[in-house]
Structure formats: structure tokens, C-alpha cells
């Protein structure tokens, strides 16, 4: 994508109220200068902070027990180890710092699972900026620990009572705040969604995942992986780890630049299949969040992309056992890469994700986020993954303990641990 292009093929664009356009122009300018141009050493400062505050580089770990199970070399990119417990901090810190460089006085953000909200709250405290987070009421209830964390970090939390009270509503409400406060406020959007330049900018803050993975794969395995697997809600962890496998990076050095062989790296974006891929047009409900697999082109939250919508174009309620994937849209860049057959969209259902949650916890000693569990569940596939597979462990499951236990109790999973000890 050229620096001034706002689209990814037919996708992307800037479908926002005129009131926001000047801020978006200003942001585009800042993105080009600071992020792409490293003006005033912005990217150097970002990289230093994400290293010291965030804990990068993050290891690429061979999962011995999964490797044995699947008879392939399974490596885990351990974004769960990033400060806050998910990849989200890459972007939150990047945008927070950019807002500071732009002279903004306040940041706002939406959150679904609460991971982007906690990451933003942490970054805001670290950067000493006031911060307000919007979160759907339903998510406030199912991600309680993250709600506490945001408050502890000093962020204001605004529960959103509209609609079903999930990520979709939280984004809309944050846009409304922004439309009111745009002059002194930056909206730290939490995935590769929204109007340009957000999708490209958020990807570029997460690109460091891909950079590290390429280097580590070469150092530890002697070559690039055969496949890279990541879950996709909005798609930020997805594009974060895919970025440098898809196209040349503005940051990659000649030595590390992409070769023809990279096209051999298969990229799998694993969406939430929820309880079923079927939709209920009448009630406007999709019992899944698989917009890449089953959605159609449309315009939502500032961008043209693939969406879950009815024939009129009304946005459907999405559903997933994991709050962070529970969204009716997806990043426009991913939509484009799917159309181009560069990224393969796949999906796994709630049950399979929960099973994978328990599997990684028991077999590898890593409790993944329910979002991440979707990527892990895909390893059970028959698809051609090759010998050397990298899975992006986008986050840890501490936030999900309660939800995972409740959802597990409602099912008959083959590998659920008994929790009887608590009844004593």
C-alpha cells in the first residue's frame, strides 16, 4: 500500500462523519511522519518502550507436547507474555505515544474482551495521559477482572448499554465520544479496523510480531515456517504476525527482506465459528463471528470490509464464546488478502475452542485466551499445514477463567478438568 492510499483494493476507505475527517487527516499526516518516517525518532522511542515496558522481544517457543501430538513442529509466538497479557499493548502503546507526539491531551478506546482496554489503560498510565474506555455492558459482566484492571490503572470506564452490549456497540459509542471531543482527544482503536489510516497504522504497530517471528524462525529452525496460524476478530494479532510474510515491510532491512519463498508460507486466519455458521436473518443474529468465511462486503465503522449483515445491510449481532472475537466486521486488509487467496479464512466452533483452551493449559502449561484458543483448535484440522507451524498465542487466559469454567460446565468436553475441589 502506498503511503497515501486509504484502501486495500476494494476495501478500506474512510466512512466517517465530516467532523472527524480533519482529525483523520491530521492522524494520517502523523502516521506518515512519525510511524513511517520515524520523525523525531518516534519509532525508536516506540521500540524502546515496547521493549522495556512491554517485554519485547517475545519468545517463539517450540511446543514439545503439541508437536508430538500433531507430528509436526508446532511453535508458539508467545504474545501472552507481553505486558498486560496480550498482543494488544503493541498498538495501544504505539497509538498512545503517537497521541502524545500529536499534542493530544486525552485518549479514548473501545474494548471487547477488555484486553485492548487494559492495554490502553496501562499505556495511558505509563505515558501519563487521561484515558476513558467504552465497554459493552455484557462484556463488562463477562470480563470482570479486566474491568478491575482498567480502573486500577486509573482509566474511566463507561459501560455501554446499547444493543447487545458487546464490541460493536462499544466502537460506535467511542466514535460518538470522538465526534464530540476530537479536537483534544485521540481515539485509540483496538484492531486493524476503522477508517484509514487506522488499519495500516495498527498493523504497523503490531508488525513487530512478524519481524521477530521471521528472525526467530530462521535462528531457531533455520527457515521460515510452512504455515502461520492466528485467530481473527478484527484481525490485529493476525495481521501483526502475517505482515512481513505478505509483503515487504517498510522496516525490514535488505538482509531480512522477503523473498519469493515467503509466498510458500501459508497464512490461516481462524475465525469464531460460534455455535453454528448459519444465520437467523429474521432476528438479525449470526451465531458466529466468521465475517471472512461467511460475511459479505459492506461498510461498518469507517471502512468497507467483509461483514455479517442481512440482505438490507443491517449489521447482525455476532456471537462467540470469546468476547474479543465477537465482532461482525474484520479488518479490510484481511478481507483483501482473503480475496487474493493469500490468506485462508477458516473457523472453529465454540466447543472446539474450549477444548483447545483446556488442551494447551494441560499439555503445555500455558492458559490461552479464549480468542487464541480458536487458533489452537485449528491445529486439529486436516488442512495442509506442513512440517513447521507457527501459532500466534495472542493472549493469556487469566481474563477468561470464569467464563471458560462456566462455558465448560454447560458442555460435555472430553478434556475438561473437574473443579470439584471448590465445593468442599
Amino acid at each position, binding site marked *: 500500500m502506498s503511503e497515501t492510499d486509504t484502501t486495500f483494493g476494494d476495501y478500506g476507505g474512510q466512512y466517517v462523519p465530516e467532523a472527524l*475527517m480533519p482529525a483523520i487527516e491530521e492522524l494520517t499526516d502523523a502516521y506518515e511522519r512519525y510511524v513511517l518516517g520515524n520523525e523525531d525518532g518516534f519509532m525508536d522511542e516506540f521500540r524502546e518502550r515496547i521493549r522495556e515496558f512491554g517485554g519485547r522481544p517475545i519468545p517463539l517457543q517450540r511446543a514439545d507436547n503439541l508437536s508430538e501430538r500433531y507430528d509436526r513442529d508446532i511453535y508458539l509466538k508467545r504474545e501472552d507474555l507481553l505486558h498486560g497479557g496480550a498482543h494488544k499493548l503493541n498498538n495501544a502503546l504505539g497509538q498512545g505515544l503517537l497521541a502524545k507526539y500529536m499534542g493530544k491531551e486525552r485518549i479514548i478506546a473501545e474494548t471487547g474482551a477488555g484486553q485492548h482496554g487494559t492495554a490502553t489503560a496501562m499505556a495511558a498510565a505509563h505515558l501519563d495521559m487521561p484515558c476513558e474506555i467504552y465497554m459493552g455492558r455484557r462484556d463488562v459482566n463477562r470480563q470482570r477482572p479486566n474491568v478491575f484492571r482498567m480502573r486500577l490503572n486509573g482509566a474511566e470506564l463507561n459501560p455501554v448499554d446499547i444493543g447487545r452490549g458487546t464490541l460493536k456497540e462499544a466502537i460506535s459509542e467511542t466514535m460518538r465520544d470522538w465526534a464530540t471531543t476530537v479536537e483534544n482527544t485521540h481515539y485509540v482503536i483496538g484492531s486493524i479496523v476503522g477508517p484509514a489510516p487506522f488499519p495500516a497504522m495498527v498493523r504497523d504497530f503490531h508488525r513487530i510480531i512478524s519481524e521477530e517471528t521471521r528472525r526467530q524462525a530462521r535462528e531457531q529452525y533455520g527457515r521460515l515456517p510452512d504455515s502461520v496460524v492466528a485467530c481473527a476478530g478484527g484481525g490485529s494479532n493476525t495481521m501483526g504476525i502475517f505482515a512481513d510474510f505478505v509483503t515487504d515491510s517498510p522496516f525490514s532491512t535488505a538482509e531480512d527482506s522477503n523473498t519469493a519463498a515467503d509466498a510458500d508460507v501459508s497464512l490461516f486466519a481462524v475465525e469464531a465459528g460460534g455455535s453454528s455458521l448459519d444465520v437467523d436473518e429474521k432476528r438479525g443474529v449470526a451465531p458466529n463471528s466468521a465475517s471472512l468465511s461467511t460475511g459479505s462486503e459492506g461498510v461498518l465503522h469507517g471502512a468497507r470490509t467483509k461483514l455479517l449483515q442481512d440482505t438490507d*445491510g443491517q449489521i447482525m449481532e455476532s456471537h462467540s464464546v470469546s468476547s474479543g472475537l465477537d465482532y461482525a466486521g474484520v479488518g479490510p486488509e484481511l478481507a483483501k488478502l482473503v480475496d487474493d487467496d493469500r490468506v485462508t479464512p477458516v473457523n472453529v466452533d465454540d466447543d472446539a475452542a474450549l477444548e483447545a483452551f483446556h488442551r494447551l493449559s494441560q499439555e503445555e502449561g500455558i492458559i490461552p485466551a479464549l480468542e487464541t484458543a480458536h487458533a489452537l483448535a485449528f491445529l486439529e484440522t486436516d488442512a495442509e499445514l506442513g512440517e513447521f507451524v507457527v501459532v500466534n498465542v495472542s493472549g493469556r487466559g487469566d481474563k477468561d477463567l470464569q467464563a471458560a469454567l462456566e462455558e465448560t460446565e454447560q458442555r460435555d468436553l472430553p478434556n475438561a478438568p473437574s473443579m470439584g475441589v471448590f465445593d468442599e
Partner: protein
Amino acid sequence: MSNPAIDAAFTDGPAFIPYLAAGDPDYDASLEYVEALARGGADVIELGLPFSEPIAEGSTIQGAIVRSLQSGMTVDRYFEFVTELDVDVPLVCMTYYNLIYQYGNEPGPEPFVEQAAATGIDGFVVPDLPAEEADPLREACDEHGLDLVFIVAPTTDDDRLDRLVSLSSGYLYVQARLGVTGAREDVSTQTTASLDRLAEYDIPKSVGFGIKAGEHARDIVAGGADGIIVGSALVDIIADGYESDAPVEETAAELESLCKELTAGALEGAQQH
């Protein structure tokens, strides 16, 4: 290139442009309410086609949209509604781009615009469609003789303003303040500043966002506006009637009476200008 019906609305004194969401709180009552606007003196009516993610609306209009969708509003029903509507006032369809984009067999705005024109719609306001993304809809509107009204915000700088004026037809929607729709107690000082800035442009300027009472209408028209746009203050009446189960005629009468107050305020303002 602009729509004669809408042009006409601005020839004879300040234009009063009320907004309601079609189908709020249900199809039949909504027909009555929209007709009440006409009786109240509407020169143009902005008729909302409800979209599930109305990012530019405050809680009042969000409420209208929820009520309308829940009572079964769809795009097809909206066109039926327009057809059935018995008013002699130009209609501007206010909606979000995805509904326009999805309509018909191929994606893109043309099928929707064609159908809108056939049904008697005279123009569009699309809050999530800035100049940057407007070309396809602008073209379709031109082809079918419909106006496309752009919103000018307090944050719009001069370069953008030139561009918006050149793209807009019918009138300019002057956003009175930052934020989302919703009735307010006062007239924003941003409004006067905006109108001053716009004075040189030769296109009708209608001010919206927050106008609630006759005196606001008066002050805004006195400040140089060619029209006033009022939504949330009217929707509030419907919401109250709905909550209290008031008879439809009673609510319709209240709507008509507020419209009359606003029309009168606007007229008064025109005399002061």
C-alpha cells in the same frame, strides 16, 4: 444539477427541515407523524431510514432507530412508506452508507438511488459519507436528478469547505456543534462562527444539531442560516408519547405545534437578519 423541489424550498423565506425516523415507533403511527410535520410547516422533510449502527446519533435518535427496527422497518418497507406518505414536501433520505450500498443486485449506490428516485425521494444526507468516499453516490444522484447534501462541521477547514460546497447540492447541512445529534438548551457559539465563514458561498445553509425551540430557530436564522434542521426535539415528543401510551393524534398534534413554533421562530429570525 440540483433538485428543483428542494431548491424551491429555499426561495420563499427560511426553510424549516424537520427529521423523523421512518417507522418510529411503528409504521402506521409514523405515517401520521410525518404528515404532521408537513402540516406544521415543513419545507423539506429529512426522513430517516434506520441503520443498526448509527454512529453519528445521540441517544434520542438511537432510540427512534431501535423502535423503528424493532417494529419491522426494512429498506423495502421504507420505500413503501415513502410511496404511501401523503405530503407535498420534498423528501431527503437520511441514512448510513451501508444500506445504500447493499441495495439491489450489485453492490454500489446506483440501484438504491434509482429506486429512491422512482419512489419520490428528492435527495440524501449520509452522515458517514465524507467527500472522500462520495463519488459513486454523487454520480448516481446526478444521474437520477437527486440532491446530495453534505455536512459541514465546526472542525471543517477551508480547503475541505471548498470541496464540500462544490460537491453539495440542494443545501449544506451546517453542523451546529461538535458531537452527535441531540436537543440542547442553547445555541452554540460555533454556529455563528460557521455561518460567518459560509456567508460567501452561494448555496443554502441549513443548520442542525441541537435545535430545540423557536428562539433557537430565530437566533440561527438571524445569524444567517437559510434553513433549520430539527430532529431530536421532535423525536423526544414521539418517545414521550410512546412511553406514556398517548393516542397517536395527541402526539401528532404536539409535533405539529412544535413545528409551528419552530417555523415561526425561523420567520422571526429572517426578519431580524
